[in-house]
C-alpha cells in the first residue's frame, strides 16, 4: 500500500499536466458543473412536455435534450474529451452499428402494406416499384 499522501487542490485544474497521473483528473468544477447541467436539463425536458408543439416536434425536442445530456455524460463524466481518440472511435462505432440496425429494419417495416390503425380512413401506402401482374 502506498504512502498515504494527500494531494492539494492545485492538482485539480483542467490544464494540469498529466505526467504526475496515469490519466486525466477531472476537476471538481467540471464534475459539479456537468452534474448541475444534467439536472437542469432534466427539469427542462419535463417542462417541455407541458407545452404541446405537436407529437413529432415534442419527440424531437425530447431527443435533442437527451442527446445533449448524453454528450455531457460521455465527454465529461466518462472523460472521453480527455482520452485517446480510439476510445471515441470504439464508442461512436458501436452507436453507428446500432443506428444501422435501426435504420435498415425501419426501412424494411416501413414498406409493409398495412393500414395505419391511427387513421383507418387513410389508404395504404404504395409499395416501391410496380405491382407484379398476375399471369
Amino acid at each position, binding site marked *: *500500500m*502506498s*504512502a*498515504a*499522501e*494527500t*494531494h492539494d487542490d492545485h*492538482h*485539480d485544474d483542467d490544464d494540469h499536466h498529466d505526467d*504526475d*497521473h*496515469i*490519466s486525466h483528473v*477531472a476537476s*471538481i468544477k467540471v*464534475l459539479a458543473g*456537468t*452534474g448541475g447541467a*444534467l*439536472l437542469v436539463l*432534466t427539469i427542462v*425536458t*419535463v417542462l*417541455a*412536455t407541458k407545452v*404541446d408543439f405537436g*407529437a413529432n416536434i*415534442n*419527440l424531437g425536442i*425530447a431527443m435533442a*435534450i*437527451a442527446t445533449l*445530456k*448524453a454528450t455531457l*455524460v*460521455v465527454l*465529461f*463524466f*466518462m472523460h472521453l474529451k480527455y*482520452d*485517446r481518440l*480510439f*476510445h471515441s472511435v*470504439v*464508442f461512436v*462505432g*458501436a*452507436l453507428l*452499428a*446500432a443506428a444501422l*440496425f*435501426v435504420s435498415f*429494419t*425501419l426501412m424494411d*417495416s*416501413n414498406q409493409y402494406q*398495412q393500414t*395505419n*390503425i*391511427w387513421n383507418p380512413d387513410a389508404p395504404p401506402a404504395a409499395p416501391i416499384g410496380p405491382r407484379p401482374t398476375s399471369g
Partner: protein
Amino acid sequence: MSDQLHPPHDDRGAEHGHGDDHGHGHASPFIQHHYDDAKHQFDAGKLGIWLFLAQEVLFFSALFVAYILYRYHHPEIYSYAHKYLDVKFGAINTAVLIFSSLTAAWAVRCAQLNQRRGLILCLAATIVCACTFLGIKYVEYSHKVHEHILFGRYFDPCVSSGGRELLTKGNNCAGTKSTVVWDAGSQAATYGCYTDIDQDPRKPGVQASCQVTEYAVSEAKGAEGKPAAKPTETLKAAITERCVEEPLPGEEPEPVTGHEAGHKQAGEAAPHAQKFPCWRPAFQPAVCKKGVGILVEYGDHAEREDIRIKAECKAAPKAPDPGDLLADRQQQLALGKPAIQPRHELTVHEAHELEAAGAPPEHTNMFFTIYFAMTGLHGIHVLFGIGVFTWLLIRAIKGQFTPDYFGPVDFAALYWHIVDLIWIFLFPLLYLIH
C-alpha cells in the same frame, strides 16, 4: 490508431523493475506481471472497458429497434399507454441516477488523488443512489402488477390511462369484485367490470355491486308466527323488506319462492323481487326504486347457520356533469373498442384526455412489453452495478486503491455512466411522450 509500442517485456527475474511509481512509494501489488507498468495496465483496462461498453450499447440496441418500430407503426398505443406511467417517479429516478453518476465520477477523482475518505464516501453515495433507484422502480412495478398493467397477455387494466374504469377480460380488477356506472336515463348499467365474460353486457340486466358484507338477520325477522325458517328464506324476506320491487320495463317479474310469509310491504306494488342475472348465479339483485341504487341479495349461503348478511345500497350516481366529455355518449361495451366522438370540437388537451379515458387501443400490451423489457434489463444492469460498487467499496476500505492503481474504480464508473446514459434516453422515450 497509433498506440504506444511497448518494449518486449522481459519477465525473467524482474520484480518491480518496471514499476514506474512516480516516487509515491512501492508500486501497487495489483499490477499484473505481464504489464510493463501501472500505466500499461490502466491503458489496457481502459480500452477493454470501452469495448465492453460498446457491446452494452449493442445489447440494448435491439430493444430500441423494437421500440422505434412499434412507435412508428402504432403511435396511438404509445400516446395512450404512457399515461399509465408516473412522470414524477421517472423524473426522480433520472435525477437520482444523474447524481449517482456524479458521485461515481467523483470517486474516480478521489482515487486518483489518493483521497481515501472521499473515495469511500462517493462509492457509498453511488450505492445508496442506485438502491434508491431500484426502490422507486419497485414502487412503480408493484403498482403496475397490482393494477394488472403488464406485458403481453397479462395486460388487463381496470382503469383506462385517464383513470376511468374499464371492462376487463378476466375481471382482474384489484379490490372490488365489480363496479358499475349507472345510467340514470335508461335505468341500466352501462359500464362495469365483469368476472364472467360470457355475460352479454348489452342486455339491460343489472350488474350489481357485489360489495356484500355480512347482514344481520335475526330469527325475530321470521316472525308473524312462522317458525324460524331456513336461513335462505328469512334472508330473502329480510332483504326484500328494504326495497320496493318493481319490474323493469320489459321484464317479467319472476316469482320469488318461499318468502310470502314474511313479506311486509311498505304499501307499494308487486310483492315480487325482480331477479336479474348477476355475475354470480347465486346473487339475486333487486332494483331499488327512486334511484336509491342497487341492492344485493345474498343467496348462496344456505348452509350457514347464522346468516348475517349486510348489503349496502349504493347511492345512485349523480347526474352527469354537462362538462363531462363522456356524458352523452354511449360506450360500446365490447372490449378494446375506442370511444366515440364527443359533442364539441376538442382542444388538443381535451382530445388527449378523451383518448385516455377510453378503452386501450388494440395491442396496447406491446407498449408494456417494451417498457418492462427495457426498464427490466436496465434494472438488472443497475443491480449488477450495485454489486460491483459494493465490491469496490470493500476494496477501498481495505485501502487497495492508489493513484497508481485505481483502474477498477474508473472502469466501474464508466459502466455506471453507460447505465445512466441509457436511462437518460429511456426516460423521455417512455415517460415523456408528448
